[in-house]
């Protein structure tokens, strides 16, 4: 009687131990999945070109608008588009004012032609012909929390860019931003704040831009350079009806 009881309790214990082990594996897997999800969530949506984008570019429906962002923090060169991870946040986001928003910048997703181009600070927007207002927020370690903020974009430095009809590749200039560090974050990252000034340097690197796009879009034709025009509060907002509205 006692022996049978012992056997039963031993089996129960064995089953319990095996269940605990499988539960541990489950918990670990769930933890790993959670971590991966957090890693993904920490990324700002930025894209490499899809087949749909390439088709829009080839048909002339949209133009590839290329710009370069350069940055110095505490007078030292700083990579503006480090690949975000759980502990590394992006330091630049962009807003675009359109006909629909009457020039008021709203968060816009930028893309990278390649990983090398990303490291060198080259970004692009795919835009149908029209007049746009580009607002740049950064370098700022808290910039990710400002993507929905109309006021932050409203106060950010803004430039007008004109996307003309029948143009597939446009280079609008290279912008140089400065920032300063003010302490450290929990995981060791720097707290960076932007230093805005009335005159943000705009450089013409059309030769570099031309070489970069010729490498990736050899069939898209010649690159057109139309430099950004700085817009200051009080200047008129110029809008033009997009083709899609004229068709309606």
């Amino acid at each position, binding site marked *: 009687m006692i022996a049978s009881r012992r056997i039963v309790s031993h089996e129960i214990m064995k089953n319990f131990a095996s269940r605990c082990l499988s539960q541990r594996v489950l918990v670990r897997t769930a933890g790993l999945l959670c971590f991966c999800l957090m890693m993904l969530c920490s990324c700002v949506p930025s894209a490499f070109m899809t087949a749909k984008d390439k088709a829009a570019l080839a048909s002339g429906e949209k133009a590839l608008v290329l710009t370069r962002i350069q940055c110095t923090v505490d007078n030292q060169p700083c990579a503006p588009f480090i690949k975000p991870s759980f502990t590394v946040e992006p330091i630049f986001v962009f807003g675009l004012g359109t006909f629909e928003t009457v020039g008021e910048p709203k968060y816009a997703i930028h893309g990278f032609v390649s990983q090398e181009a990303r490291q060198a600070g080259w970004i692009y927007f795919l835009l149908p012909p029209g007049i746009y207002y580009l607002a740049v927020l950064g370098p700022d370690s808290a910039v990710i929390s400002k993507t929905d903020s109309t006021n932050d974009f409203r106060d950010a430095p803004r430039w007008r860019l004109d996307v003309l009809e029948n143009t597939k590749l446009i280079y609008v200039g290279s912008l140089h931003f400065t920032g300063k560090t003010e302490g450290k974050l929990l995981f060791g990252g720097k707290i960076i704040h932007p230093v805005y000034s009335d005159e943000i340097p705009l450089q013409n690197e059309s030769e570099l831009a031309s070489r970069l796009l010729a490498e990736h879009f050899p069939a898209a034709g010649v690159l057109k350079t139309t430099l950004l025009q700085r817009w200051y509060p009080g200047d008129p907002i*110029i809008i033009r009806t997009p083709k899609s509205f004229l068709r309606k």
Partner: protein
Amino acid sequence: MPISNPTLKVFLCCISLVLVGCVLLPIPLPENKVLAGKPVTEEQLSFLSSKDTTTQEVLDRLGKPNIIWEDARIFVYNWEMRWGILFWAVGAYYSGAMGMAEIPKHYLLLIQFNDQNRITRFERAVRPLTQSCSDFLQAWEKNVPMTPASPRNNPEVEK
């Protein structure tokens, strides 16, 4: 179980309102505070009534417009007046918050020109809070009737 006592019903209703705890009270005030932009008065508009008024004359008298709709040949001057204040209070259990916010009234002066840069029509209008600026401008450009804030002005018809 159905509640039959009417006093209890009222009491429960009051309690639920207090628990949900949200009060919004708009208080209209005289429009004497400018929140944004530079107001354009009716008197300033008298020179627009002539169909000979040119783009340059408008720029000289009223300054640079806030919005230029290039292909529609429309100038827009906009400004915001304080219509009133919104008193709000939110409360639940032992905590709550309250405050006040200014309610803006969006005024626009819209002027359309023809190919010879002369005025075809103008209007001093109020944009509803629920309508976006873009929608409002498109409706005006298509000559869709607006809220009757001010009469439409068409110099060519008047003369």
